[in-house]
């Protein structure tokens, strides 16, 4: 009975949403604000990657809010899962093959993550993606070694320093320029590693912050055995 009601409801919702969405033209040229961003990204921000330019430069304040949301989620998860008695991860050890190969792959994954967030303004990727890649490397170590521990104090120091770097760069824009998060550094030659002013600096800070946050989050979630 519940299934029938649910399916009927979904058919009504689906019919009207598809009916509405199909009125949006598909695959036509970029108009409006997207067109402006595409045409003036290199001139206004110095970054080659328009998506990064939008996320970090045009909508940098929004990204600061996004980082705050992620921080709040990590903190809230730690508060919800807090236990005085102290918890442990699963006692099951992985097999020898998994352990040996993850020991070899782990530094390479960390290197890839660093590459992705350092080159955020040149190639697809950026701070969030790079941080997530680093956290997956740590997850691999967590599930292969039961004794692998992360230093929580160091993680929270990295996280706070990265967050403070972001806000400090923002205030530097306010002091030396005209607005919060203004791009005050020289743009350099578009397409080179050291270009685009503050964009790579902010993305490196975001990469460290997201990596540390996601690592702490995974550690909290995996420690569920009393």
């Amino acid at each position, binding site marked *: 009975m519940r299934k029938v009601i649910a399916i009927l409801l979904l058919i009504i919702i689906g019919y009207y949403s598809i009916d509405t969405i199909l009125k949006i033209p598909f695959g036509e040229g970029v108009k409006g604000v997207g067109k402006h*961003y595409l045409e003036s990204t290199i001139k206004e921000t110095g970054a080659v990657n328009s998506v990064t330019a939008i996320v970090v430069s045009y909508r940098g304040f929004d990204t600061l809010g996004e980082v705050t949301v992620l921080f709040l989620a990590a903190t809230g998860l730690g508060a919800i899962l807090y236990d005085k008695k102290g918890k442990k991860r699963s006692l099951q050890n992985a097999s020898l093959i998994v352990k040996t190969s993850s020991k070899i792959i782990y530094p390479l994954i960390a290197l890839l993550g660093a590459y992705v967030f350092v080159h955020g303004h040149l190639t697809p990727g950026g701070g969030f993606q790079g941080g997530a890649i680093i956290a997956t490397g740590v997850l691999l170590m967590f599930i292969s070694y039961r004794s692998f521990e992360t230093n929580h104090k160091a993680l929270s120091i990295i996280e706070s320093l990265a967050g403070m770097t972001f806000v400090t760069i923002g205030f530097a824009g306010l002091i030396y320029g005209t607005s919060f998060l203004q791009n005050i550094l020289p743009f350099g030659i578009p397409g080179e590693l050291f270009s685009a002013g503050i964009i790579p600096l902010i993305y490196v800070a975001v990469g460290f912050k997201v990596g540390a946050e996601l690592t702490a989050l995974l550690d909290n979630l995996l420690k569920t055995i009393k």
Partner: protein
Amino acid sequence: MIYYITSILLVLIGMYAVLVKKNLIKIVIGLSIVDNGIHLLLIAIGYVKNGTAPIFSKAGLQPNQMVDPVPQALVLTAIVIGLAVTAVALSLIIRLYDHHKTLNINKIRKLKW
């Protein structure tokens, strides 16, 4: 066209899981399927026929050959928020399981609708 319909179908599949399934983990999986459907829909709206990624990686790429970068930037934000929501929901589920020793929403009293 088919992209719009497929992403709406994904949203509907996720909503079906949220409405019908009794297991809390399956409900969270349904929520993330809804999330993914909406991301695909936004990306599809920004698509341009034969367009490339909005990155000026080679000389000679013109802005009119590229897809819309704005939906991609917004979806990047939405993915991060979706991750945060899923993580907090899973931690609440771990707590509920500790307390009630079950994940079935019918067996957890005071949660019925």
